[in-house]
């Protein structure tokens, strides 16, 4: 009898143009929390999809509780006691918790809601999930929805639980709660597979960690005796620095001047209030704040996507308050948008079209209204090479076929290569792995060092502190304060993010 509850031996899976899993072996012990660590596109999700019956392995053996099995569909996986919490929840929004959980398991002709609801309540109490079975999904928080997904697995008597990037959508408090739930599940004898690229989470809950890189197994480590930087190095394939090396800023002339700006938000009330900010050449100004405090409205007003109620925006001394988006792009604004799939790329078009989306109508990419495909391809190849944008078919790949990290690299490549005087980067590393984050941070610093201005908007304080020369804090649409990064700390900025203004001790 083997002491592994799950064994995937020598798994291989090819997709057109790419080997997603190349001879990967995964062994999970009963009652352990086992992390699978890898960059975006390393093959973690493919491996789990094979275990869950969504894909077929081209080669390899799967054993559950020592017995070789064939898993052809998620139903087979369920029958073997394997449950999965997907990154995107699979819940019907206008159904109650109970209805969602028994969906597909109704059994018989008459719905027995009452006994189902009772069982759900029992399970919820046993694992302290705090779920009211009669709540409607659309009325509960994201964290709670995730717990409903967990409950669904438990209700179906799963004892092997797969979590696919479970923390991507959670607030810090919710993450803590989830970690606690996972620990208590493991204590009850459940085996947990945690797919993630966040090292802190692995360190917090997992016992062992399987690291994969570019579809290959790199190693299995004991989490307690391995430190974070070792794991990061295994994942990325080289040493990773978490601190960005940068020289002190060489600050020059003002590039962006925002004066007393008022902007309406989507609810037609002021989302940005009397906001003033100056960003100089050669510096990175970080805009810190909790999501939804007017950052998007401010950025859209600067880039021309949203009209201004009053106040002004100047770029290099020129008033662009009412200029068109095109005029702003041409006078030197680069913009890494918050939502890369909505605004940043045309997913159904090849990469080369995406790279010239702002400049297709200028020489050398076109003359007299006719495109020069040769020049466009040459330029695109330069960006792909320079920014290590990986894809199946190079510049001919459709943008939508790229992984999230590579899509982001493509956008940053496009924006940085254009050499804008002002680069506005909104959440430039959201959802990316350490390797990509490091790369993007370096690019932003390099842009600053070439004498350009950078306005960084991020909800992650780490990122703000790592990159910014000065930090501006926004709360409820108002500027709370602007401080030198070297003169402040995360605690002080955190207070300001909550809207608490620090008393000025030394008056001039």
């Amino acid at each position, binding site marked *: 009898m083997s002491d592994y509850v799950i064994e995937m031996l020598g798994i*291989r899976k*090819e*997709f*057109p*143009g*790419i*080997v997603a899993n190349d001879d990967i072996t995964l062994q999970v012990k009963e009652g352990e929390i086992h992390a699978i660590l890898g960059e975006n596109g390393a093959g973690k999700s493919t491996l789990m999809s094979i275990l869950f019956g969504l894909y*077929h392995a*081209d*080669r390899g053996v799967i054993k559950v509780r020592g017995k070789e099995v064939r898993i052809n569909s998620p139903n087979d996986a369920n029958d073997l006691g394997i449950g999965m919490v997907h990154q995107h929840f699979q819940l019907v929004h206008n159904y109650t918790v109970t209805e969602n959980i028994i969906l597909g398991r109704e059994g018989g002709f008459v719905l027995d809601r009452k006994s189902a609801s009772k069982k759900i309540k029992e399970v919820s109490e046993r694992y302290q999930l705090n779920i009211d079975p009669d709540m409607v999904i659309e009325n509960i928080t994201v964290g709670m929805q995730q717990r409903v997904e967990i409950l669904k697995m438990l209700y179906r008597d799963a004892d092997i639980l797969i979590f696919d990037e479970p923390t991507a959508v959670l607030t810090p408090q919710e993450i803590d709660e989830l970690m606690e739930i996972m620990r208590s599940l493991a204590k009850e004898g459940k085996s947990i597979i945690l797919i993630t690229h966040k090292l802190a989470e692995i360190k917090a809950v997992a016992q062992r960690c399987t690291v994969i890189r570019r579809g290959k197994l790199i190693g299995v480590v004991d989490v307690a005796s391995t430190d974070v930087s070792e794991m990061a190095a295994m994942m990325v394939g080289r040493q990773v620095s978490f601190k960005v090396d940068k020289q002190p800023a060489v600050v020059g002339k003002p590039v962006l001047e925002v004066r007393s700006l008022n902007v309406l938000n989507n609810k037609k009330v002021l989302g940005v209030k009397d906001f003033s900010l100056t960003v100089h050449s050669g510096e990175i100004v970080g805009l810190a704040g909790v999501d939804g405090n007017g950052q998007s409205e401010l950025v859209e007003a600067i*880039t021309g*996507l949203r009209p201004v109620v009053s106040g002004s925006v100047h770029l290099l001394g020129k008033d662009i308050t009412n200029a*068109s*988006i*095109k*005029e*702003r*792009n*041409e006078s030197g604004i680069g*913009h890494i*948008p918050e939502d890369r799939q*909505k*605004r*940043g*790329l*045309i*997913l*159904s*078009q090849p990469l080369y*079209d995406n790279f010239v*989306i*702002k400049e*297709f*109508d200028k020489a050398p990419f*076109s003359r007299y*209204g*006719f*495109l020069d495909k040769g020049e466009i391809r040459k330029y695109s190849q330069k960006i792909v090479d320079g920014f290590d944008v990986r894809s199946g078919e190079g510049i001919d790949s459709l943008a939508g076929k790229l992984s999230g990290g590579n899509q982001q690299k493509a956008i940053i490549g496009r924006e940085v290569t254009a050499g804008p005087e002002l680069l506005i980067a909104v959440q430039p590393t959201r959802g990316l792995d350490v390797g990509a984050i490091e790369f993007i941070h370096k690019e932003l610093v390099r842009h600053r060092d070439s004498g350009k201005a950078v306005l960084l908007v991020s909800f992650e304080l780490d990122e703000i502190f790592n990159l910014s020369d000065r930090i501006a804090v926004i709360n409820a649409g108002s500027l709370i304060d602007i401080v030198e990064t070297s003169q402040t700390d995360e605690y002080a900025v955190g207070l300001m993010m909550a809207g608490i203004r620090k008393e000025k001790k030394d008056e001039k």
Partner: protein
Amino acid sequence: MKSKEPRLIREHKAGSLLVSLSAVVAGILAGCVLLLIIGHNPVQAIRDIVYGAFSGRRRIGQTIAVATPLIFVGLSVGFAYKAGLFNIGGSGQMLVGGCVASLWAYYGADIPRPLYLCIIVVTGMLAGAVWGGISGFLKAKFKVHEVVSSIMLNWSALWFIYEIIPAFIPDPNVNSRSATIPNELTLRTEVLSQFFPRSYINWGIVYAVIAIVVIKIILDKTTLGFQLKAVGANRDCAEYAGIKVDRNIVVSMVIAGALAGLAGVTYYAGYSNMIYRNSMPSEGFDGIAVALLGNSNPIGIFFSALFFSILKAGKGSLSASSGIPPEIADTIIATIIYFTATSVLFRNLWNRLFHSVYERRLGKRAAVNGSEGGEK
């Protein structure tokens, strides 16, 4: 010292040509089944249709004449679709184009023919462009959906022309139609009529081929096409990139309208030589099917228009020789439209087939690799 990395086996994906052809074949097969059910010989029926479309130069000319407006409206719908718009107003745009041409024929008989031809083509296109442009403008300015406005504009055009005809281009004998345009004032020409005697073939087919080339160039090679496609594929991204989305919506509807307006000129002053006061040209809607089957690709639209015109031109001889009602040909056309509209089914079917072939090849190689491993 052989390399360990095995060559990748690629998985095929179904292209749009294969998908369109599958829809055609499935539609024809369904039509054959229908014929069998009502007790006719499908082979004979197909032979009749092909005979009706191609036997003799007159019939070939006729088929081409039927295809001409279909190509234009197909291009019109396909072009708008590339910019993310659904131009369902081809009929109204055809009517205004045809009406303008008829007015010139009635009042401008003295204009020298080369100049006259240029004038009716240009003004017919302009009229269609205005009609299409209204939909574009309403969409850009007031967010009125182009499907709603273009359907309403179809009826506006119909009733507008209903009044124009008796007032300005009356037929001396019949109240229900416009004055007949004399042969020398239509697009029909000796050059083509010589080859295809007694058919309604006209200069329109030459214009249509030119239009295909021009539209193909616009879409593939120009900054205008680049913008239109960007707007059609992702409006938010186009806006972000500084492309003027509203202007592009208007421009694409203007060009689409111009194409359909030209369809009207070739139809009412070429294929036909009069406008019936109370009749909406079905070509405006057939063009949607043409564009769909042709995957909005100009070359594809040419062939799909030709295919539909074969069915349309051939259905007359179908009923004449075997007594099959012409509605059967219409039913086959409709079936094909259904199949193209659900072309995603064919795409999935083919992709599943390709996938199983791919898996089998992988499996075979895995077996080979496995035995190699065993020898070591």
